[in-house]
Each structure stands twice: as C-alpha cells, then as structure tokens.
C-alpha cells in the first residue's frame, strides 16, 4: 500500500495537491494491471468538505484517507443530502424554522431565536452547521455537519466566546476524539488531543502532530508492506518518525532554495531543513522531478539518496486524441495556468501581453488559477488597466486540472513566469495539448521540459521584453508555431503513463 501523506485537499488546490491526486489515480490504474500498488491520498486536517473536494480533484472514497474520518469511523460513508428542514434532530413541533434567504435559517421558540442554521455553501438548503444561543445570546454549542450529511463534530466555547472544546463524533454520536483549548504560555491554543476508546483504549497527545504520528503508525501497522511518501514539507519530520514501513520517501515538489542562481549553496527555504538536514536519513530516497535538481541536491548532500521521478503523467487517452491544429484554436491566445501569487510573477505575463499587443493587436491572455490574496487580484487588474490591456485579459479563476484540457486546446502559447519550479505540471499539460511554452530561464522545469527553439523558448529570467519578442514571433509565424506544436505533442509522449510507471517502479524498489 502506498500512502501519499499530506495536510489537506482544498476547494482550490495548488500543483502539489494536483500532483498527489494524479499520482494516486495513476498508481491505482497501474495496480489494476499488476504494476505499482494501491495508493491513497492521506490527509491530516479536519475537513468536513473533504469528500466534495476530493471528488472535485478526481479521487473516490477509497483513494482518500483522512485522520479524523479514520478515528470517527466515517471513511466510507456515502453522501446523503441533508436538507435543514428535514433534519430529524429538530423537534419541529417545538420550534419554528424561519428562513432568512438562501444562506441561513433560524430556529425559534415562541418567537425567540434559539439557534441559527447555516446553509452549506453552494447548496440549496443543506445543513452546514447549527449554532445554539442562550438567552443572553451567548453561543452555547455549534454542531458541524459533514458534506456527506451527518453531524461530525460539536464545539463548545469559553465564557468569553473563544473555542473551548471540540468533540468529534462517530455515526452513533459517541465522542471518539476531544480537543481541548487552554492556555499555553498565556495563549489560548489546543492543549490536549484525547482519543477515546480507540480499539479499547484512550490516548492523549499534546499536539495534533503527535496524534498524526500515532495515526500514521496505526495505518502502517494495519497494512502489510506500506510505503509512505511525504508530500508536504511541514510533515517530513512526522513521516520520518513512523515505524514499520517498508519504505519512506519524501517528494520535493518545488525548488529547495530561493537563491535560484545558486541551488547548490543557496540558503535553504526553512521548510526544507527537516527533510534535507535533520531527517533525510529516515527516507529510503528523496524524490525530485528533474535530473538537474537531483544533481544539485546530491552534490550538496552526498550522503542522501536523491532520485528522479517526474510527478506528472499524461494518460494514454489524452495522448491518443487527434491533435488540435492552429485553425481550431482561438487565434493569438496566450495562457497562464497557476496560482496568482508573488513567486509566480503573474504580472510579468501582463507586461509580456502589453508588448505583444503592439505587434499582434488581437492577442489575448487568459489566466487560470486562484489569487493568493484579494490584493494580488486587485493589483493585476490595476496593472492591466495601466498597461491598457484590460480588454485583452480574462481572469478565468480556479479550474480543476481535470477540466482544463479544452482551455489548453484553445491556446496558442503558454507563459511560465515563476521564480522557480520543481517541474511545471502546467507546461506538461500544455504540451499534451500541443501548446508551445515560453518560460523564463529558472530552475528546474524550464530546461527539463523546453528544448529552446524546438517546442518553445527559454528566455533570460525576468526579461519580459525577450519573452514578448519570442511570443510575437510565434504568433506571427504560423509555420513555426505548427512545428513547435508538433514538437510539444511529441515531447509530451515522454510523460506517457507507461513510461512513468517504469520510472516510478525503478525508483520505489
């Protein structure tokens, strides 16, 4: 059994979660053919929307294992929509349910509000949580419902209104896990995690990390031949402590240093200290996406085992589909796929666009990805206005990677403006759909994926002028574009599932 260990799955996921989810699917497809093994995406955080979010990222119930669900005995509960007006726990002969628009209703006893029922986001009238109030309007208890329609936890509060106790329930309503919030050095924090009657015994932990380690040990103990892959730098030290595994690996999804010019000696990002300098020995190997990063890390840490296993696959179906020609695409459309956050430099794409528009007046740019902050979104819009390209830009928001294919097939060029990338799943996916890439020259993905002048261009880091020139060239020369598109399609073959399976098999054994 392979467990890919992470913190959570979100409504908006970054490349790491996508890579992990894809890897789960890929392993399980291969497992059916007797290669690789069954895999699951393991998460630590309490997330009542996990089944929705996992589903959105393409995972089914068997492919996700959350710690809280595990202890609550709810890993395999199917969704049953729970409309708040049909909730059996509400004594409807005692309380009026009074609606207040689409977002919430109240429970009223002879006209007095005793509880507020919030509607689950993006649903019509399904119960999300119920907050009860005393006669002085203090919150007494909050009951939290899972996306799948059952009461999952109850929160209690200190007299000042701050969270005091969380009780996590099994389906019979029995408390199986309690989290107490008390002062630690004068600050109110979770101070006790108590597991109740787990296989007949209670266990107490000072931190959620300790509980998570216990959980990982338990799931490892219960499955023969377990391999863990730590996908999150915040969890490396915990995974390192798990006992009884066949193998433990850590997967580095990103570049390990902000000093991209000197990856061998540049200052490590603090998050990488655990895996590379403290607990590296606990892992059979540390996995990276590119040979270049492997060489850099091996030079820097000669005692560690560093191996290469690109964390992206293109399924056979995508590779087999007819290639999309220029005439079938949106003319002169540029694409940006990724989070809108500072290290991705999305504003550089705008500056490129502003220059390209001078040569190619009908050029457009579409962003897909969620903004890390409201401010970032605002700044981009302001810049687009200032550069007079606001009419050429579309902010498409977050689109799950499974739905992005048709958007890739509309585009002519994808821009990569990040300060660094472990690989660049966006470029691989673009290539799978015949889109040439233009990237800044940063480690590690650019050179691994782009053969300069063949399936795209690698331009000097930070030079939007050169990037714009290359893009304009591509847009204005249909023959060149067609050649590069074909080269992109061809390059994508390297990530065919069968090839990746071979690589992963070698790496893991």
């Amino acid at each position, binding site marked *: 059994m392979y467990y890919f260990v992470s913190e959570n799955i979100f409504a908006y996921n970054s490349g790491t979660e996508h890579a992990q989810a894809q890897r789960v699917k890929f392993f399980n497809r291969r497992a059916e053919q007797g290669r690789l093994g069954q895999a699951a995406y393991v998460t630590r955080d309490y997330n009542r929307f996990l089944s929705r979010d996992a589903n959105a990222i393409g995972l089914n119930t068997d492919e996700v294992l959350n710690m809280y669900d595990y202890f609550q005995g709810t890993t395999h509960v199917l969704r049953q929509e729970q409309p708040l007006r049909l909730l059996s726990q509400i004594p409807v002969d005692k309380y009026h349910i009074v609606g207040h628009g689409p977002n919430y209703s109240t429970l009223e*006893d002879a006209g007095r509000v005793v509880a507020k029922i919030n509607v689950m986001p993006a649903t019509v009238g399904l119960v999300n949580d119920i907050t009860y109030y005393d006669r002085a309007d203090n919150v007494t208890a909050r009951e939290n419902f899972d996306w799948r329609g059952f009461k999952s936890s109850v929160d209690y509060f200190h007299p000042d209104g701050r969270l005091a106790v969380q009780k996590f329930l099994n389906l019979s309503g029995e408390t199986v896990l309690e989290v107490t919030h008390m002062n630690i050095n004068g600050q109110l924090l979770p101070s006790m995690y108590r597991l109740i009657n787990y296989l007949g015994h209670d266990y107490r932990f000072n931190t959620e990390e300790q509980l998570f380690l216990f959980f990982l040990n338990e799931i490892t103990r219960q499955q023969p031949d377990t391999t863990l892959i730590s996908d999150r730098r915040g969890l490396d030290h915990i995974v390192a402590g798990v006992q009884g595994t066949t193998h433990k690996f850590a997967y580095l999804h990103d570049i390990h240093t902000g000093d991209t010019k000197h990856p061998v000696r540049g200052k490590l990002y603090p998050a990488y200290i655990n895996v590379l300098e403290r607990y590296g020995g606990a892992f059979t190997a540390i996995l990276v996406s590119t040979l270049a990063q492997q060489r850099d890390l091996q030079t820097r840490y000669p005692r560690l085992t560093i191996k290469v296993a690109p964390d992206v696959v293109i399924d056979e179906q995508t590779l087999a589909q007819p290639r999309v020609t220029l005439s079938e695409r949106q003319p002169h459309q540029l694409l940006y796929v990724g989070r809108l956050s500072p290290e991705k430099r999305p504003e550089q794409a705008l500056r490129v666009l502003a220059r390209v528009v001078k040569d190619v007046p009908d050029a457009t740019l579409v962003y897909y990805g969620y903004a890390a902050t409201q401010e970032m979104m605002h700044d981009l819009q302001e810049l687009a206005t200032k550069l007079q390209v606001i009419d050429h830009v579309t902010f498409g928001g977050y689109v799950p990677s499974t739905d992005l294919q048709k958007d890739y097939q509309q585009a002519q060029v994808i821009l990569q403006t990040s300060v660094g990338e472990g690989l660049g799943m966006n470029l691989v996916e673009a290539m799978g759909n015949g889109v040439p890439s233009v990237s800044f020259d940063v480690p590690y993905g650019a050179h691994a994926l782009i053969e300069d002048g063949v399936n795209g261009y690698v331009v000097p880091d930070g030079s939007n002028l050169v990037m714009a020139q290359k893009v304009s060239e591509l847009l204005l020369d249909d023959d060149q574009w067609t050649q590069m598109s074909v080269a992109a399609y061809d390059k994508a073959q390297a990530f065919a599932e069968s090839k990746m399976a071979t690589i992963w098999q070698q790496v893991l054994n």
Partner: protein
Amino acid sequence: MNFFINATMPKQKSGIEHAELKRLDLFNKNNEPVMVVLRDWDPNAHINANDAGIVDNQLINMFDYFQESLQIEPKKLQVQDIEFGALNIKFADDVEKSRYLVKSNEQLVARVNYNVDADRQVKSVEWFDGFNNLYRVDHYDSRGFISLQQWYTPDNKIGTETWQTPSGRTVIEAFHKNTMSGEINKTSWRLIDRANQVYQFDTLAELTKYFFDCLNDDYWSLDQPNVFIADRAHLGDWGLLHLKKPAYTVFHLHNAHTANARNPAAPLLNNNYEFSLNNIDGYDAVVSATHKQTADVRARFQPKTKLFTIPVGVVPDRLLGAPRVPVAERKFGKMVVFARIAWEKHLDDLVRAIGLVHQEFPEVTLDLYGYPDPSDNYKARREVEQVIDEYQLSDVVTLKGYTTDIDQVQNEAMMYGLTSRMEGFNLAIMEAISHGLIAFSYDVNYGPNEIVEDGVNGAVVPYGDYNALAQAILQVLRDPKLAEQYMTGAYESAERYSEASVWSAWQSLLVDAKESWPAKLAGMPGYRGGQL
C-alpha cells in the same frame, strides 16, 4: 403509572423520604405500579436508593433517563482501571486527601479521587493537560461509568458541563456564560433526547417539564391517567402545571402550608409551597396527612380541586397484630421520646414538665432518643442540659442517642411526650401509640394534635404550657385505671394508620384519577372517541 417525584434519596433522609418509602411499600403490597422519580443528578442515586429498598426497575432518575443508564450492572472501578492514555504511568497515594496523584514521566496527568473504603472505587478524576492546566473533571456514577464531565475555563472555573451515556454519547449539556450582570451564570441547558432530537432550555425547570412530558408519553394509556405525585412541590411545580398532555397531578403537602405552622391563616406561606398553593386548582388533587390540615387548606384557599387526607405514616399489620403489653408489665413512670434534639423540637419544655412531675413521683424517668442537632454549637442540647441541672434531673433524664431498637424500648416504656414547635406529621408519635404508649403533646400542627386524641389515647395541652403538660401526666400516674384506659385507646387509635385504612385513602384518590380520565381525554383536541 404512579410517579413519586422527589429530588434525591439521600442517606440522611427527612420525613419526606420516609413517607415516600412507606407509600412505595404500600403500593407494592397492593400491586399498584409505582416509579420513584428523582430529579437531581446524584452519582450515588442507585446505591442510596437500593439501600433504601428501591429496586432499579422502580427508579427513574432524570439524568439516568436521558443518559440511558436506568439499569446498569454496577462495575468495580479502581484507579488502575482508568484509561490515562499515557505511557509510564505511576500512582502516588495521597491518603490524606483520598486520592492518587497520577504521573507520566514526572508530568501530572490526573488526580483520582476515591471512596474511603476497602474497594477505593473511583469517584472522580481531575485531568491536567501537558501544560499543567486542569481542563476537565470526570465524575463517575457509583456503577462505574463517567456520568458528568465538567470542562474548565483558563481561569479555572467550570465552563461547560456535559453528561453522557455509558457508551460516550453526550446527551445533556449545561452552560456557564457571562450575563448582563457581568457574572458567570448557568444560562442554558441543551438536551439530545432519546430520539436524538435537540432541545435547548433556559432552565432546569424547563428540562424537568420536558422530562415529565416524556414520562407521560412513555406510560400513556387511554384507560387511566399517569399519576404524578409531587413530594417536593417546588422542584417540579411549574412543569407539572404545564404538561403537554393531560395527566393526574397531585400536590402532596408534607409540612405546614404557612411559615408559622400554628397559624394556618398566617400571611406568609411556606416558601416551598407558595407557588403551588397559588395555583392550587391547577392540580387534580391535594394531599394532606391530617384532617386538620385538609380543613385549614379548604378554609383558606377554597379550592375547587379535590382534597384528600392520607396519612403519611403506616402502622404495619405486624405491629397491629402483636400482643398488647399491659401497664403492669411496663416500667411505671417511664416516658420516652424519639426526636432529634433540635430547636424546633423544643425538648427543654418536655424536661421541665418531667421536672414538675418528678416532685410528686420520684420514680418518673425520661429517655431521649435522637441525634443532637449541632447547629449553634449544640444549642438545643445545651438548653436541655441546663433544665436538667435546674431541676436536678441527672438521674431522671437520659440522653440516649440514636437507636433502631424501637420495639423493645417502646414496649418497656409507659408514656411518650412531644413538645415540638411544629410538625408535618410526626411518624414517631404514631409509632408510639401503635406500641400502646400513652401520648402527651402540645397542641401543634400538623400531626401531634391529631394523632394524639385528648382524653382517648393521652392528652393534648395548649402550646407552651408545660405546667398543663405536667398536670396531664400526673393525672395518669395517679390513676392506674385511667392509664389502662388511655393505653387501650392508644392501641386502638393506631388502627387509623393501618395498612388497610391508608391504602383505602389512596384508593379513593386513584379511583378519582381513573374516573376523571374520560373527561380529560375528551378535552384533548386530538382525541376522537378513543383514537389518539
């Protein structure tokens, strides 16, 4: 079903609990179904109730009811049975405080408080987190499961209280919150009932009412009503007056209804009864233990509801059938009294009367059986002792302490004396006449002046007149024929409290309940000729 409603059944019982237990016995003997309903949370409810002779399937504690723990096999639970959830646990016995200090690697994990006996059954566990905060106290039921958990605030006050089933499902919660007064008060209760429905109540009274409604539903019958007998009216009066569906509700007086028992017209009512008396017609029946109280209640409140006089004492058939002990076989001049030595019993007056009698009959003696009341540094006992000194009665009056050997003591004595300031019934003087003791009492409400019939089984003299009491005693001591007559009167007057006559009084109430039921049902909007 008949429900007897009380708060708890403590080890130290008052007259109310004794009355209830006697009634329970009577109902059981007559195969009339009964449940003893206890409203207050009490981790020892089952031990104490069982000790008092109540079996688990006749006991419904409100918390047990919702905790689904009405009938649980008691389990021995000692410190080593507790799940501490940590490694390298060590116990240190802190004998002085009856607890173990539990540490894991020098970190205090818990303090385990135990019963002071050989078993050291765990009573409660105080839990500490890894940062030395006391965050919770678990209170165990005597049967060995966690009943109540009290969750603490960072400033070491109780924040939330949660009660759970033995399987660990939280079913009752009570919340301590800030109010506008700036104080932290219990502001709310939440119940997850047996059908998993969630209710929020402002007060324990509202929860209690809901509980009564549940009982009424559980035992609902179209043939007869459920009978709710409120033995401590104040703890469920509001609920019984607001039941959702009809029932037959009984307000049982166990004490004088006025603050000053000797004045049934006194403006101030007994606080415990005030609300019920002001809603008297909201009940189906009011029970007093004496005819006198029934008459006083009728005169003062002119209720339209039914009043019943039902003695709270029962003289068992065993006693009524026992051979009578003639005066000649008793110790001449020996008076006894069974009462706590307390202010309201006013026993110093009884000693004064004996002091006066002693001047003519040196052979007179008085034995006082009962614990001294410690309040005000045993003031009542000191007053008794002072009178003993004053009348030089140290060889005459004896403070015997508590005894259970009532039959022997009473069969050897001749007289019984009572000088209380007030009474609700006084079981002891009833027992005295059933043993043939000649009874002397002040004229006080309620009980003594009815159980003692002047000129029949003894004498009733004006309240506070110990001279008159002495004269009445002297009259009997001087006249052996009179003594014989009163003694026979005592034995015979005890028949009023025979099992048969008390049961017959209850039967008239139960018959009234049954007869009134069709009309009550017919008054229910949902009732259609027997279908509901």
